[in-house]
């Protein structure tokens, strides 16, 4: 998995993406803020949505409570 390891830990790119999201962000916003390639952001956000870490509302994603909790040390 690109964003979540088999141990359920976030990859570095997933952390970057989650940290770059405020209330709501499009993949283009996240790509711009993280300097990750857009294709990778799209694939990563889709994967994180399947894992319940972000949710999609129309064309923008926002972190879920679970997603936010994984960012805090």
């Amino acid at each position, binding site marked *: 998995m*690109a964003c979540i390891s088999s141990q359920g830990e976030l990859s570095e790119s997933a952390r970057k993406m989650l940290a770059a999201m405020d209330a709501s962000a499009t993949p283009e916003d996240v790509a711009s803020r993280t300097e990750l390639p857009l*294709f*990778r952001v*799209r*694939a990563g956000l889709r994967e994180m949505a399947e894992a319940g870490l972000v949710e999609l509302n129309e064309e923008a994603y926002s972190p879920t409570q679970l997603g936010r909790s994984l960012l805090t040390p």
Partner: protein
Amino acid sequence: MSSLVESTVQETSHAPAASVQSASLPRLGMAAPAFEAVTTHGKIRLSDFHGTWLVLFSHPADFTPVCTTEFLAFAAIAPELRKRNVELLGLSIDSTSSHIAWVRNIKEKFGIDIPFPIIADSNKEVATLYGMLMPGESKTETSRCVFVIDPVGIVRAMIYYPLTTGRNTDEILRLLDALQTTDKHKVATPANWKPGDKVIVPPPATMEDVEARLNAGYECTDWYFCKKSV
């Protein structure tokens, strides 16, 4: 494992020929076949590249010498391609573990990072979809194919090399420059064109156009053969 995405219409809704294209091998000017595949960067769909140019290329096998030289060459042009809004996506009929081990080996032996994802097409789904297997060469290894797909998902160029001949990545870069110049300026590019050279003005279709052409300040050898700088 790769799995084909059913939503071809959604994938290529901007392309008028999508419904015709979905069941056949890639054709120039037609929508690229949609796919979802496991890669060294996770599961990726063709639609993830919407808005960027994509160079989808296959190689015969990991841990082989010609392919290694090609990967070094593709890695070398990756920064130039990125400047042109072009992404690379490799493919072979190998597992993700094999790809990862090979990429790590390239880093260890040559000191080069491979920055692009590689499809692990163990079940040959994407290779079959794109016609990358040439039975006359091999039934188990993909030939050296290159598909240039534009930001709206249309196949713009295809190159096929045999197993024995490594590709010229400078030509791939030149091809991208030519395609992008064509799109931007609505012109064609002559043989051996490179950025900075004059381009071909499309031939006129009417007598009126011919007269206008000859007075337009182009460098014309004859009415049908005019060049200009861009």
